[in-house]
C-alpha cells in the first residue's frame, strides 16, 4: 500500500513538474519584460501623470499601475514618494492596487493558459473593480 502511494505521489509530482515546464517559456518572457520595464520606467516619470482631478487620477493610477511591474513592495515605496509629493489618496489607492493585482504584461500569458475571452473578461472586471475599490475606500475613509 505504501509503495503504491509513493508511486502515486511520484506521478503527481512528475505531472506537476510537467505543468510547470509547459508554462516556462511564458514565465521567462514575462520576467524578461519586467526587466525592461524596471529599467526604463522610473518613479519620477510616474508622478508626472497625477494631479488632474479625482476621477482622472483614479483612472490614471489604475492605468499606470497596470502597466508598471515589479514586486508589490516597490509599488508601495513609490506610493510613499508620491504621497509626499501631494498626490491624492484616490490616485495612490488605485495605483497601488493596480500595481499588485493588474498587469498588462501578463495578458498574453494569461490568455495562452485560460483563453482570450476569459482573460479579456476577467481583466476588464478587475480593472473596473480597482477603480470602484479606490473610490469607495477613500469615500469610506471620510466617515472616520
Amino acid at each position, binding site marked *: 500500500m505504501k509503495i503504491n502511494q509513493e508511486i502515486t505521489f511520484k506521478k503527481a509530482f512528475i505531472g506537476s513538474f510537467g505543468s510547470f515546464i509547459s508554462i*516556462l517559456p511564458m514565465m521567462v518572457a514575462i520576467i524578461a519584460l519586467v526587466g525592461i520595464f524596471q529599467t526604463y520606467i522610473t518613479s519620477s516619470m510616474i508622478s508626472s501623470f497625477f494631479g488632474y482631478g479625482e476621477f482622472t487620477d483614479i483612472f490614471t493610477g489604475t492605468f499606470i499601475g497596470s502597466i508598471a511591474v515589479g514586486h508589490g513592495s516597490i509599488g508601495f515605496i513609490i506610493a510613499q514618494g508620491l504621497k509626499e509629493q501631494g498626490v491624492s489618496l484616490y490616485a495612490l489607492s488605485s495605483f497601488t492596487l493596480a500595481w499588485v493585482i493588474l498587469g498588462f504584461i501578463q495578458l498574453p500569458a494569461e490568455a495562452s493558459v485560460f483563453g482570450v475571452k476569459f482573460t479579456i473578461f476577467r481583466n476588464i472586471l478587475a480593472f473596473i473593480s480597482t477603480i470602484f475599490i479606490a473610490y469607495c475606500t477613500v469615500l469610506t475613509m471620510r466617515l472616520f
Partner: protein
Amino acid sequence: MKNIKFKGVKFLLIVFFLYCLLFIFDNINALNSISKSLSILVTLIPIFIFIILLTALINYFLKPKQILKHFGEDSGKAGIFYSVMGGILSHGPMYAWYGMLNDMREHGLKDSLIVIFLYSRAVKLPLLPLMISIFGVTYSIILNIYIIIFAIIQGLIFDKFKKLY
C-alpha cells in the same frame, strides 16, 4: 512524463526580438534589463519550487471528484471561501500560479473561482505592515475588506455571464 505542450512560445520569441532590438540601439540598458530579469528569476526560484510541490500535493490528495466537490459547479459558498483564502495566502507573482490553476481547471475547477482567487491575491499579508506604515490601519482594513467584497462580486458576475466567453 506526458507530451509537454509549451505555452507562450510566440510571446517569448517577441520578447527575444525586443531584446535583440535593444542590444542594437541601447546596449547598456539591454544589459541592465537582463541583469534585473536574472535577479527576479533568482528570487522566484523558491516560489516556483513551492508551487510545484503544492500542485503535486493537491493532485495527490485531491482527486478530481474532490476538486469538483470543493471547487466545482456545486461548490457554493464553501468554494468561494476556499478561493478567497487561497488567494490571500498565495505568494509570488500571479503568472506563477497559472499552471496549477489550469491543472485544477482541467479537473473541474470553476472559472468564477479562478477569478475570485486571482483578485483576492490583492490582499498582501506580507506587505500589510508596509501598507499600514504608509496609509494607516483604518485605510488598510477598509481597502482589504473592499478587495474581498469585489473579488467575490467579480466571481458572481463571471458566473452570470459565463456563456459570453
